[in-house]
C-alpha cells in the first residue's frame, strides 16, 4: 500500500469561481491529521473530492495509490449525514445497509462502538438528537476497515463530555496504518491526538506541519493556528 492520500495539482471550479486551486497534499500512513481553515475555505469540498462525490475537478487524487473513484471509495470511510435514509429508519436497518454494501464493515466493531456511544439499535433516526446522529455516524465510519478516514466536522452537535471521550478513543478505533483526516472547529480538544496539521487558506494548502514541530516551537496547536491567522492579518 502506498500513501493513504496523495493529491497533485488539484483545481476545482464551480459557477466560474475557483473553490480549490493548485492544491497538493500527501498524507503518510498511521497519522491523525487536522484539516483546518475558516468557514468556506473548502475543507468539505476537498473531502467530497477525495471521496469521489464531487465531480469535474482537475488534477490527481489517489487514495491508497488508487486514482479511480470507485477504488478510492473502497479504501476510505467518509462521515456521511445519513441523508439517504428516511427518518423512520432504525439503526439496525442502517447497519444492514452498511453490511451489504461495504465488505470491510465489521459488525463486531460497530456493536462495540454503539455501546460506547450509548445508542439503542432499535432507535429510529427521527427519535435521535443531532448529537446522537453524529455519534452514530462516527460509529458507522469507524466500523469500516479502511486506509483513510475522512471526518467532516464530526463533533459539532455532541456534548462536551461525550466529545472528549470520543476524541480520546479515536486512536483505539483506527487500524495502526490507517490515517484520519479530520476537519473540526474544536482545535483545542482534538489537539492531543493529532500528528499533523493542514491549514487551507486562499483556496489551497498553505501550511502542513507536524504537531511535534509545532510543540518544539513552544506552541500549542490552537496557538499555532491562531497565530497563523494573526500573522496573515498583520501582513
Amino acid at each position, binding site marked *: 500500500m502506498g500513501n493513504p492520500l496523495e493529491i497533485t495539482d488539484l483545481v476545482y471550479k464551480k*459557477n*466560474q469561481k475557483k473553490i480549490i486551486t493548485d492544491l497538493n497534499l500527501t498524507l503518510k500512513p498511521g497519522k491523525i491529521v487536522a484539516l483546518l481553515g475558516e468557514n468556506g475555505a473548502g475543507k468539505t469540498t476537498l473531502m467530497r473530492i477525495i471521496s469521489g*462525490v464531487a465531480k469535474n475537478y482537475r488534477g490527481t487524487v489517489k487514495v491508497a495509490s488508487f486514482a479511480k473513484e470507485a477504488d478510492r471509495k473502497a479504501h476510505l470511510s467518509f462521515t*456521511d*449525514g445519513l*441523508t439517504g435514509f428516511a427518518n423512520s429508519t432504525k439503526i439496525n436497518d442502517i447497519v444492514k*445497509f452498511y453490511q451489504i*454494501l461495504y465488505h470491510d464493515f465489521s459488525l463486531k466493531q460497530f456493536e462495540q462502538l454503539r455501546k460506547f456511544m450509548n445508542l439503542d439499535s432499535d432507535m429510529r433516526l427521527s427519535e435521535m438528537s443531532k448529537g446522537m446522529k453524529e455519534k452514530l455516524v462516527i460509529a458507522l465510519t469507524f466500523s469500516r476497515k479502511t486506509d483513510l478516514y475522512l471526518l467532516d466536522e464530526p463533533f459539532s452537535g455532541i456534548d462536551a463530555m461525550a466529545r472528549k471521550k470520543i476524541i480520546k478513543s479515536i486512536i483505539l478505533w483506527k487500524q495502526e496504518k490507517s490515517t484520519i483526516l479530520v476537519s473540526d472547529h474544536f482545535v483545542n480538544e482534538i489537539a492531543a491526538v493529532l500528528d499533523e496539521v493542514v491549514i487551507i487558506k486562499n483556496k489551497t494548502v498553505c501550511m502542513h506541519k507536524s504537531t511535534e514541530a509545532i510543540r518544539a516551537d513552544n506552541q500549542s496547536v490552537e496557538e499555532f493556528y491562531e497565530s497563523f491567522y494573526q500573522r496573515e492579518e498583520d501582513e
Partner: protein
Amino acid sequence: MTSFKSLFGRFFVEKAKNVYSFLIIQTVGALAFSVFGLLIGTGKISEFLNSYTELLPDWLMGFCLLGVFFVIFFFIYIIVKNEKINHSQTWRLTAISDEKFYIANSLSTFATFVYFIILNIIVAGILLIASFFMDKAFRSSCERMFKQFRPNFELNTIRFIFDITLLILLCCFFISLLISFLNFSSKAIMDYLPIASSGLIVKILHIFIVIIIAWFFTKVEKIFVDQVLGSLLNFLNLNPAYNNSLPYVNVIVVVVNLIVFVINIFLFKHFFEAK
C-alpha cells in the same frame, strides 16, 4: 468493492418497501368503495348482508379500476425515489463505478415498477378466482361469456399483445430516463453558470431543455427514423411479418432509450454531484 448484484438488490429492497403499502391501500380502498356502493344501493344493512356475495365481483371491479390510478401514482413515486437516490451522498459513497451505479438504479426502478404490476395482476387474479367460486351470478355470467367468446390465439394476436405490452413498458422507461436527463443536464449547465443555483433558474433551465429536446426529437425523427433506421430494418429484413408497425416502433424506442441512457451515464459520471 461493492458488487453490482448487491447494489441492485439493495436498490430493489429500498424501492419495493412501499410496494406493499400501495397495494394494501389499493385493495382496502377498492373494498371500501364496493362496501359503500352496496350499502348505498340497498339502503339497509340487513339487505346488504343478504347480498354479501356480490361484494367480491364489485371488489374485483373496484380493484381493477383503482389499479389504473395506482400504477400511475406508483410510477411517479418510483421515479422521484430514483432521482433522490441519484442525488444522495449516502448511496453515492458506495464503492462502485458511477456507470454501474446509474445502471443498477435505473434498472431496479424499472424492475420495481414491473414487480408492482405483477403483484396487481396476482391480487386481481385471487379476487377473480374467489368471485368465481363464491358468487353464483358472477360464475354463470363468466361461463356465459366464455361460451360466447371465441379466443383467437393466432400467432399474430400473441405477437400484437406482446408488442403493445413491450411498447408501454419501454415508454415508461423512456419517461424515467427523460426525467433523469432533465435533472442531470440542468445541474451540469447550472454548475457552469456564473451565478449560484436557485429554484427559478433551475425551472427556466428545465423549460429550456424541454424545448431543445422537443426540437431535437422532431429533427431526429425525420432523419433517423425515416431514412437511417428504415433502410437498416429493410436491409436486415426485420420488417414485421404481420400487418402492424408495432415491432418497428419498438425497435425505434429501444434505440432512443439506449441513446438517452448512454447520455445520462455520461452526465451522471462527469457532472452530477451528490448532496
